[in-house]
């Protein structure tokens, strides 16, 4: 089941899910970017819509422990992926942004 998710509900929901991620410290400063990418992705947008219905998120704006339901794995994998693809993580392995170029150091 998937329904339309308004952008402001989507943004609040992404913020609530990020708050439950083990990578939240690194992800929170990127929340705007993460929200935009999440809502533009077919699978993640559909998963968010399902979670919104299950949790009645539009009315309550709160997310209970069980509300992620079967979408939990997808949403947490998405956030984990973002963490490991983030500039901060890449910088920690010596691969800072260099305009797409990876010549020798």
């Amino acid at each position, binding site marked *: 089941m998937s329904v339309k998710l308004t952008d402001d509900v989507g943004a609040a929901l992404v913020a609530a899910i990020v708050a439950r991620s083990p990578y939240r410290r690194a992800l929170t400063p990127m929340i705007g970017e993460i929200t935009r990418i999440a809502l533009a992705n077919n699978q993640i947008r559909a998963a968010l819509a399902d979670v919104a219905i299950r949790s009645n998120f539009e009315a309550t704006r709160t997310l209970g422990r069980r509300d992620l339901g079967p979408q939990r794995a997808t949403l947490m994998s998405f956030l984990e992926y973002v963490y490991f693809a983030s500039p901060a993580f890449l910088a920690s392995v010596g691969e800072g942004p260099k305009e*797409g170029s990876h010549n020798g150091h």
Partner: protein
Amino acid sequence: MAIEADHCDVAIVGTGAGGGIIAHRLAKAGLKVVSLEQGGRLPDDYFSETAPPGAKLDFGIGPSTVWPADPHDSLFVHPLFADGAHGATPRPADGFRHFQILKLNGLQNLWNGVSVRFCEADFAGWPFGYDHLADDYSQVERLITVCGTKEGIAELPDGEFIPPKPLRPADTMIVNAVKSLREPFSHAIPNRKAIITTPGLANSCISTGICTSGCPVGAVYKFSARLLPEIAGLDNYELRTNAKVTRVLREPGAETVSGVEYIDTKTGERRRLEARFVVLAAGAIETPRILFNSADDADPAGLANRTDRVGQGLQDNPKSVLSTSLLKLWGHKRTYDIGYGDLLILMSRGKLPDGSDFPFIGHAIHGLPDVPHYLSGFAGFPPAVKIRMARMMFHSYVTLGLFCAGEARPENRIRPGSTTDSDGVPQVTIDFTTPPAAREQMASMLKWGRKILRKASATKIYESIDNNGTGIHYAGTTAISDDPSAGVVDRDLRCHGLDNLYVCDGGVIPNLPDKHLTLSIMALSNRLGRHLEERVQSETKVAA
């Protein structure tokens, strides 16, 4: 560029590997040439801004990215690949996975650039041998710039090369692993790729570590990056984009064609272009579609199809892919140029249960995992451990992609379909099952790959095999043969029974060897250009 003509000497359908080389050659020779290209031209900054390689934009996440994903499938998720509403096939979910890029340059927008010559044995079943194409290979290599090294390996003829990029520690480990087998038929040599490795030029390779996401600077050969600029200003050349050819035109039963009909996809208008010669270079699946859709009362099964050969014998290279993290590279920092990612060609022979053997070729890839496909291998570990592992292993990943020959089976074929695309043009259906021998060959390649990776200190190995369209080396559907009952085009790539209709794309290759086919498509395209130049000259002399 010339103003829009309604008549030309040569109409060339498509601007991919087959269409680009011949357009350049014939336009330079002074013939009046029109290239008709179904798609548009990508903006110059498409691969640097709109869809750059890796994680640079939006962490590499697009609308179709999925979780969990098969790491070996990432190559096949790109917005440029045509969907079932626009492509030659409806792309049914469980069918042959046909990849098509309907844009200027075709599949070469995303190709990996590996450019290898076929050897004498690979020409078995052709009406001519290696020597006949050797000069064309050389001319094309100089035109498109291929990096590589001369190795003197009979199964992989040397060509005209510029220096490749230097090998990295991961490459050296693979080279040593292959050497340690002490098999005279196993080789690990610098890759041969159509890339400008010469430093200091506007389109020199900038080392993104991956070519299959498109090159941001045009270092990897494609028509628009190298050859089109040389002919775009000529009065006798015209590139017509958004021109989707639907059929070849002729008076019913005539042995000459008069031109092509196409749809201007911007306006929906149907238009015609008359031509002395028509060259179909729309790809091994689209060209049969055009021939089927050109059926008339005299040839109700389609043009050039009197012996039912059009579409028969579809092939793609069966492939085995293995990825691992090399223990000996754990904790290593990068102090080297990552280059174009896959710096090695691998070659060997696999053994089959019946004792026979077969050749295969492939490449060893060591890129930067900025898009973290490796995460699927970390499942079950707590986040803090994942972070430590990811940091330690970041520069240790290696993937081997190994390909063996296709097999031309009559039942693997393209036939007219029952669906239409969004412009109302009939599509084709693909019947394809993996030949039984291919399964054994893929298993044998996996075995060899495992052996190499383990010798190079592999940890856990992630493996996959496939022969369902993801080799993206489509061949055999308009095969070359002097015998009209065995093929569609003759040794000059002219359709049997039609005086001025030619085909020049992957479809003409009758038996797909293990080796990447595209350099051979381009060499054939150069050769066809020469043939048409000579034909025009001699016909002009006779007329005078």
